[in-house]
Structures are given as C-alpha cells and as structure tokens.
C-alpha cells in the first residue's frame, strides 16, 4: 500500500469518525413510516438480515391493520406518519447541564418521592459523572450475573451476541401481527432488555431497568424478552419512576416472557410516565402488549403492576398457561386522576391441566379520571380442573370520575372452577372524618385509605418497590380532593 493510499484512508477514516459523531448528537429520522425507514433503523443498529426481514414482515402486516376501537378510552386519531421512528441516543450534550436547568416541577416530584439528590440528577438526565457511575454499577451487576450464567443485556446486544436465543423466542408469545400496536412495535422497536436464565439457575439478584432510565429516553418502542429455562427463577423490576416531560407521545412496548418447565418469572412494573396536565394536555399514550407463556409443566408467571402515570393506559399483561399445573398471577393497581384514562386488566388462558390463575385488580379513579378493568379468563377444552379466582375492586374519589368493569369468561371444560368478585366503593366521608379526628390531615387520610385499598397488591411488590409505589400514589393523588 502506498503512502498516499494510507493517507487517504486515514483521512476517510477520520472523516467517517467525525460524521459518526455528529450523527450521534442529532440523528433523528424524518417523520413517517415506510420500508425505507425500517431499513434505516435496522442498518443503524447493524442488524443481521433476518432481523430486518422480521421487521419488514411486521410492517407489512401492520399496514393491513386498523387501531383497536373496543377499549373504553378516547383520544384524537394518532397520525402515525407524523412520528419519527428513529432517534439516536441523546448524548450527554443534549441533556441539561445541571439541576438548575431542569423543570422545577419535575424536581419537586423527585423530592416528594424521596429520591436522593444524586439519583435525581441521573433521572433528570443531567450530564454528571453519576451517569458514568451508574454505568459502572451496571457492569458490576453484569459480572455477578455472568458468573451465574445469566444473560442480561440490551435487546440490540442480544441480537448481535445471542442470535440463536433471540430467533428461537422472539415473537413466540406475542406474534408479529398479534395486535395493531404489537405489530407496530415489531416493525420499529429500537431497543429494550433481554434476559436469559439458564437451567436450574436462581437469578442471584433482582434484575432492574432502573439504571437504564436515561437510555430509555431514546425510544418509545421498547422490546423486552425474558426466558427462564427449566427450573430457573428470576424477578424483574421495571421502573419508570421518572416523570417524563414529553407531550402526547406514543409508547408502544412489547414484553414477552417464557417460563419453561418448573421455571418462575416475577415481573413487577411501577409505571409513572407523564400523565398530562390537569386539563388533559400532553401525556403519554401507553399502549403496551405484555404476555407470558408458561410453556412447561409447573411453570409460574406473576405480573404485578402499579400504573399511576400516562394520559391513557391500554395494557393487559397476560398469561398463557400451556404447561400442566402451571400458575399465572396478575396483581394490579391502576390510578387515574385529573383527565387520565386507563383500560387495563389481564388475560388468563388456561390450556394445560390443573392450571391455576389469580387476578387481583384495584382501580382508583379521582378527579375526572376514567378507570376500566377488562379481563378475560379462558378455559380451553384441554384444561381439566383449571381454576381461576378474580377479585376486582374499584375505589372512587369524588363524583366526577368513573370506574368500569368488563369481565369476560369463556369456559369450554366442565371441570373448571371460575370465581369472580367485584366491588365498587367510594372513600366515604365517615372514613375521612374518622382519620381526621385522629389528627391526620385530609390528604394524608386519603393516602392512607387508598394505600389500604391497594395493600393486597403492594405486598406482592419487592420491598423497596412497595415503598416507592406508596409514595408515588401519594404524589399522584395530590389535589384529588377539595
């Protein structure tokens, strides 16, 4: 190679580097969705051909679909061509330089949640060394996990390093064309989490997306895939405790869980996306598909969710109980205040023999909030001795909100036992007066009563999450009375 060529190469390389750098800082695809955009996303992420093909298939399917209209929520039509589907990770330069530049309202919320100052900086995306601290923390976790043989990484990394596992399981619980939003996600998802727990391994720590919160800012289309191999167990926490300042924005994630024989997956969510203001302006449209399959005998999947954020929540974490003796659980607290709307619940699909499911749903509506529970319990012909217990309670605060319950039960096996209990109550003046005449202020009293109402669900949350969830309810209920 001549010197001249080397110099040219060096120049080219340098030019490329610089180009790349600029790209990272301000790389956002033009609004709109078409096959070219999907090719762009796939190329940016250096994906293999099969991944691109999978995306394109999903997109073609999506193009033939229409939005679901059955949910009890109302919003203006979403212009899917007005959304930008690729935005490179925000660099630290994009973020606020210090807490002084962060919306004071946001800081106030953090303070109320009792989040330490340093963590507040991380949550707000402030460019400080703490961000790097958090990265190194993540690395420490990774070492410990690797020792146990657990794979826990970003979805992109999994596509690159564990393509076999991804190809085997991706879309196996939530097929590409499952529903409108899942199809959209399958076409355009940008990143997410991947976890594989090998046979017989009890994951040595609670896996959490907490340290990824900053990165999560980039994409509103996450994809999560968790596989618990035979006899393994894992507890996964998904915390979006950082209220986002984004305006009406679509968040369409897909989560797939696969529990093989004797495996146990516990998935806990505390969702607090930006709910919009008191008049209902702004806020996240949280249209999420979450489903797990107990694919082997004695498998166990448990969903616990605390949904306090988002302008609209459309979400039904479900269990497909394929394996004999497998167990599905759904514990949910959904709170709607101001103009928030939630249509949430679960589906329990009993296929294997002696399968059991439990549904505990607590809906709280305040302000002008609308809160719907929608749940399906389906017992297939093959599901001998299937059992379900459903308890569905609604609590109303004030007289301008609404609670709705839509239970669907389909039983095709006569040996099945399905129980459904539902209550709707209001926080009574008597309860409030009782607490107040013990010296407890009105807002604290409401918090106390609501937390008591949610207790059956909170006790399913990991300890530190339960504390956070209680505080979060308090913050979300502010101004709900008086």
């Amino acid at each position: 190679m001549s010197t001249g060529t080397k110099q040219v190469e060096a120049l080219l390389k340098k030019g490329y580097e610089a180009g790349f750098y600029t790209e990272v800082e301000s790389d956002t695809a033009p609004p709109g969705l078409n096959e070219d955009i999907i090719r762009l996303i796939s190329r940016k992420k250096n994906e293999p051909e099969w991944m691109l093909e999978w995306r394109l298939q999903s997109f073609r399917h999506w193009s033939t679909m229409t939005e679901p209209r059955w949910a009890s929520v109302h919003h203006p039509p979403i212009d899917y061509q007005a959304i930008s589907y690729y935005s490179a990770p925000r660099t630290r330069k994009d973020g606020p330089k210090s807490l002084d530049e962060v919306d004071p309202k946001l800081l106030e919320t953090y303070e109320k949640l009792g989040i330490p100052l340093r963590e507040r900086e991380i949550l707000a995306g402030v460019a400080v060394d703490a961000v790097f601290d958090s990265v190194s923390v993540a690395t420490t976790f990774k070492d410990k996990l690797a020792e146990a043989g657990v794979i826990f990484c970003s979805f992109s990394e999994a596509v690159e390093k564990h393509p076999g596992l991804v190809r085997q399981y991706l879309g196996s619980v939530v097929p590409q064309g499952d529903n409108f939003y899942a199809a959209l996600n399958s076409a355009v998802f940008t990143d997410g989490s991947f976890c594989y727990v090998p046979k017989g391994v009890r994951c040595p720590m609670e896996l959490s997306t907490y340290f990824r919160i900053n990165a999560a800012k980039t994409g509103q289309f996450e994809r999560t895939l968790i596989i618990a191999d035979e006899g393994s167990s894992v507890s996964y926490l998904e915390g979006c405790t950082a209220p986002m300042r984004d305006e009406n924005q679509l968040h369409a994630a897909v989560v797939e869980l696969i529990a093989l024989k004797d495996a146990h997956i516990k998935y806990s969510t505390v969702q607090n996306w930006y709910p919009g203001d008191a008049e209902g302006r702004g806020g996240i449209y949280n249209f999420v598909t979450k489903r797990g399959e107990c694919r082997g005998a004695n498998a166990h999947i448990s969903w616990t969710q605390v949904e306090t954020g988002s302008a609209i929540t459309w979400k039904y974490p479900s269990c497909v109980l394929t394996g004999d003796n497998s167990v599905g659980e759904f514990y949910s607290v959904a709170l709607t205040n101001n103009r928030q709307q939630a249509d949430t619940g679960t589906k329990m699909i009993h296929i294997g023999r002696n399968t059991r499911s439990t549904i505990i749903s607590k809906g709280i509506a305040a302000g002008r909030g609308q809160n719907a529970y929608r749940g399906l319990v389906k017992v297939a012909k093959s599901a001998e001795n299937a059992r379900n217990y459903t308890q569905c309670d609604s609590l109303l605060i004030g007289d301008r909100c609404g609670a709705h319950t839509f239970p669907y039960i389909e039983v095709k096996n006569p040996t099945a036992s399905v129980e459904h209990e539902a209550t709707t109550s209001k926080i009574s003046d008597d309860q409030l007066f009782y607490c107040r005449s013990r010296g407890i202020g009105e807002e604290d009293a409401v918090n106390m009563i609501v937390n008591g109402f949610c207790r059956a669900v909170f006790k399913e949350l990991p300890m530190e999450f339960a504390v956070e969830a209680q505080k979060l309810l308090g913050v979300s209920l502010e101004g709900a009375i008086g």
Partner: protein
Amino acid sequence: MAYCGRDLLALPPEARAREGVFLAFQYPVEIPGVNNVYLMKASLNAIRKHRGEPELDAVEFLKLVKERVRLVQMDDSFLGRAVNEGFSGGEKKRNEIFQMAVLEPRLAILDETDSGLDIDALKIVASGVNHLRGPDRAIVLITHYQRLLDYIVPDVVHVLSGGRIVRSGDRELARTLEQRGYDWLKEVAAA
C-alpha cells in the same frame, strides 16, 4: 364553644385532635387494609409534631401500644388487624378506648360508648376509661343509661335536652333519672 381559649368549632377535625381533643365514635368505621397500629402511629406522630415534640420511632411506639392494648384486655394480634375491619361491636368500642389510651387526650368525648356492649365488654371498657381518668384530663361521657355509670362513676352529671343543658347535678341525678325517666325533667321544667 371555647376550648383552652380557642373556638373549637372553628377548627377542622384534625386540628381539634392535635389540640388534644379525642372523640370516641358510637359507630367506628372500618378502613380495610389500613393497619390499626399504623393509623395510631400516624395519628400520634401528627399530634406530637403539632406540639413540637419529636416523632416516636418504631421501637418506642411499639412498646407504648403493647402496653396500652392491655388496658382493654386485647392481645397483640389486635394491633395488626385492619382498622375495625371484621371487628365485633365490642371490639370496635374497645379499639376506641385503646386509641384514647395511646393518644392521651386532654379532653375525651365518648359518644355512647356503652351502646351495643354486653356486660363483660362493658366492664372492660369501663375499666379502661377509669384507668385514664386524671386531673389533666376531662372526659365527657354521653349515654342514655345509668348502667355504664355504675362502673364509671361521674363527677358531674348534665342532662342535655334540645341542645341545651337543662339540669346539672352529681351522680345521684343520673340515678333519679333512671328511676323517674326523662319526662320527669320535662314536667319539672313545665311547672
């Protein structure tokens, strides 16, 4: 209505409680899922905070409630139950007296604390109240019957009718009332 130099009716309920007023309810409400002892802790600390005293920590607090719950002859499992949820009528009333014992009010108003109690529960409630009598505490006991007053001997008896005190006396007044009925007072008033 003046209380310690302040207009009691002008205060919201929580402020009255923080000023040392305790109301034992005739029909205590159930608050599902809210731990009895948790309510008491929030309550006591709200009152202490108002007085400028430090909040009790969990250990000190537990010691206090375990001691006070004996006054109404309940075991510790009483503390862990949700406020009045699934309590019998007698347990609800005993819970009110237990709360009073924890909060140590300056003025306690016991609203028909004897209603719906069997004789054993009545004795327990009465003994709890008697324990809490003292020179720094005024107790206003509202009742329709002499029965409770056999166990809690009042210093002063007032007869309330149509929102006014129509007669005052000592314990003998209550006994006379029991014998002659409230109509007797009306006749006296009319005469």
